[in-house]
């Protein structure tokens, strides 16, 4: 057993650090906006793409950098430390591996480079109003008509669909006995006639998610990935990838740092809040939990590099990771005190809005509200517990 990094790995870390410092778009660090534009995301995406680092877990043959598990860990860690924008997962993390595994050569050749370059912005068409955790009950129908599928249905919670060029979508292509069996995986051009995207404003006032209505949308049959009826297997494959990195350890470490800074600035009758034994204890408890999660993630990574898949244990990363993220936003809001009450507009309304209170107080409550989603999406934490109960504990 050895938790130390090798000299090569330390050199790699330095290289990453330097690259970010030299190349991270300046206008992104200067911005105080709570929401970022499509162009913001793409500006960083393109820098990484050019360097060949935008898809750390892709094999070299498809344009990945050929990194070890540890290198990927270091890269994520440094990005988080530098507080960069994330590379959106829909194309790179989620769809990419699916295409490599299930798509035909023409599809691979067409779509993968465009994902890497950022030319295509992807969104995920999974959830429907009636099917949340119970994905297999989805109803969106795709009926074959000549060389096309004709798609009708209603997707919901579609993240950043307002910017998307394409959607990978689960559709029902047959009404067989077992609901899992009739599901297929389809790539849909968001510019197709019959698609309507309606924003959903969430309780934090932001516009991240959408409803997508599909009415007689014609999708070429060649946009089917894998066999017809094989969508459920692809969905399970994809969900496994989605959980990777969901622990968010490095980003949570940043939040701890922010929490401590705020606690140093806030005074309780003249003493910094961080000197309050009781509040300090809450920070320490969270730090210890996060430290444990960091090593749990490292153990998972180590098992992965040794070729032993993490399996259902990775649900722990999702549960603990999101619990810690939620707790952190809650403590930050607490630390700020009364100035957590003013509402900061997330959407640029053009209005001349009054900002009161210290800079660090802005948006902390909205962030707390927003993070409630983390225990819901990607399979609720209850579903994750069911998974561990069944597949790890054998209950």
């Amino acid at each position, binding site marked *: 057993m050895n938790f130390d990094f090798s000299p090569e790995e330390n050199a790699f870390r330095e290289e990453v650090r330097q690259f970010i410092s030299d190349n991270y778009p300046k206008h992104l660090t200067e911005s105080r906006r709570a929401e970022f534009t499509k162009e913001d995301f793409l500006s960083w995406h393109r820098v990484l793409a050019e360097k060949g680092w935008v898809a750390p877990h892709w094999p070299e043959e498809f344009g990945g950098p050929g990194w070890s598990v540890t290198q990927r860990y270091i890269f994520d860690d440094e990005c988080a430390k530098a507080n960069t924008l994330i590379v959106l997962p829909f194309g790179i993390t989620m769809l990419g591996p699916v295409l490599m595994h299930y798509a035909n050569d023409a599809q691979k050749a067409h779509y993968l480079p465009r994902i890497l370059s950022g030319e295509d912005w992807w969104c995920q068409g999974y959830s429907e109003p*009636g099917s949340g955790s*119970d994905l297999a009950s989805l109803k969106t129908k795709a009926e074959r008509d000549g060389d096309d599928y004709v798609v009708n249905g209603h997707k919901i919670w579609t993240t950043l669909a307002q910017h998307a060029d394409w959607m990978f979508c689960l559709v029902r292509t047959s009404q067989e006995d077992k609901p899992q069996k009739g599901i297929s995986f389809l790539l849909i051009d968001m510019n197709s006639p019959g698609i309507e995207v309606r924003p959903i404003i969430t*309780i934090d006032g932001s516009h991240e998610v959408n409803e997508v209505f599909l009415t007689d949308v014609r999708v070429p049959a060649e946009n089917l990935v894998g066999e017809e009826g094989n969508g459920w297997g692809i969905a399970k494959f994809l969900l496994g990838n989605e959980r990777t990195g969901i622990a968010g350890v490095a980003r949570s470490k940043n939040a701890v740092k922010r929490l401590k800074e705020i606690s140093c600035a806030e005074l309780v009758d*003249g003493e910094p809040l961080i000197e309050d034994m009781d509040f300090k204890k809450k920070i320490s408890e969270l730090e210890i939990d996060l430290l444990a999660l960091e090593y749990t993630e490292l153990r998972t990574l180590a098992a992965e590099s040794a070729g032993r898949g993490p399996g259902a244990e990775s649900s722990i990363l999702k549960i603990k990771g999101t619990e810690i993220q939620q707790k952190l936003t809650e403590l930050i809001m607490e630390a700020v005190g*009364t100035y957590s009450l003013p509402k900061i507009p997330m959407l640029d309304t053009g209005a001349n809005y*009054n900002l009161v209170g210290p800079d660090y107080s802005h948006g902390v409550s909205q962030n707390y509200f927003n993070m*409630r989603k983390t225990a819901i999406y990607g399979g*609720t934490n209850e579903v994750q517990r069911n998974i561990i109960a069944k597949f790890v504990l054998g209950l």
Partner: protein
Amino acid sequence: MDFDFTEEQTLLRNMVQSFVQDNYDFDSRMKIVRSQTGMSRENWSQFAELGLLAAPFDESLGGLGGGAVDTMIITEEFGKGLVTEPFLPTVVLCGGLLERHGSDAQKDMHLPPLIGGEKIWALAYSEPKSRFNPANVQTTAKQDGDGFVLSGLKSVVNGGPWADYLIVSARTSGEGWQQDGISLFIVDKSADGVASQDYETIDGGRAADISFENVKLSAESLLGTLDAGLPLLEEALDYGIAAICGEAIGGMHKAHQATVEYCKTRNQFGVAIGSFQALQHRMVDMFMEYEQSVSLTYMVNMHVGGDAASRRRAASGAKVQIGKAGRYIGQSAVHLHGGMGMSEELNVGHYFKRLTAIDAQLGSIDYHLKRFGSSEAA
């Protein structure tokens, strides 16, 4: 011992309930919240007409003599409707201060228009660095002839944008967070040197940071005794807690009820999600937290008129309970609604946000835990 409400109280509750039902459904409320001003003057006039603004005051002052319990009934029903109009700052905080400690002249001048719904009030006591402690006052009022000159900044004044009058805490002697040397003043918000930076709050309410630059105050502006305003202020805040506890249990009730209903009808895997034991038990825990909150809300409203030590203990204990319960119930309600809970279009998220805001108003959980611990029972 008697936990039952009187017939008059039941009538009062029914009246407020009808008002909320008829005038304060989700859509009407959102329209008010999203309007430029963020409150409805029309509703405010109706409150006056219905006698709600008169409810707690003594009959000799034109009130209905209902005291804390009637106030609690009103705020509980307002909490169910997420009523945003400034009942708490106007009637409970400032009205209560005027009634208990105003001079006859002050009462005569200010209470009738307050009760009549013509004037709105706000209590400007917190400051950017005061962190829940009402004794931590940097704003100063310097003697100037017969009167005073007021300077300083008050932060996150609840209802501040709507207020015609403010009650402001200021140092007339001492410094830092000394108990002595704080005085209360009645300030006309339209006076020279008063500037209000108004904004929306996370729960759809309105607040303001209000600055005072050499604001001239007459001798008659002083409320209560010079240098001895802190006990009055603390008492007022405890009355405020008693009232906001009512609002909190109203909100908890609705959030819990909505969750139970949702889980009964939302189907996943072929059954209602309310049939899953883990979710059932979470809803039971929400229910228990709600019941415990009701208990301490009743308790504080019966003890808030008592001696200072037991009032303090009752208020802080209750505020801790509703703070914690509000968090748990609010978070759970959103979570059990799944994605729907995250949507601005559903009421449950708004209860969550209001309960979150209540936690940060009138002193946080941690502040009141310490206050409770330092106030052993009399």
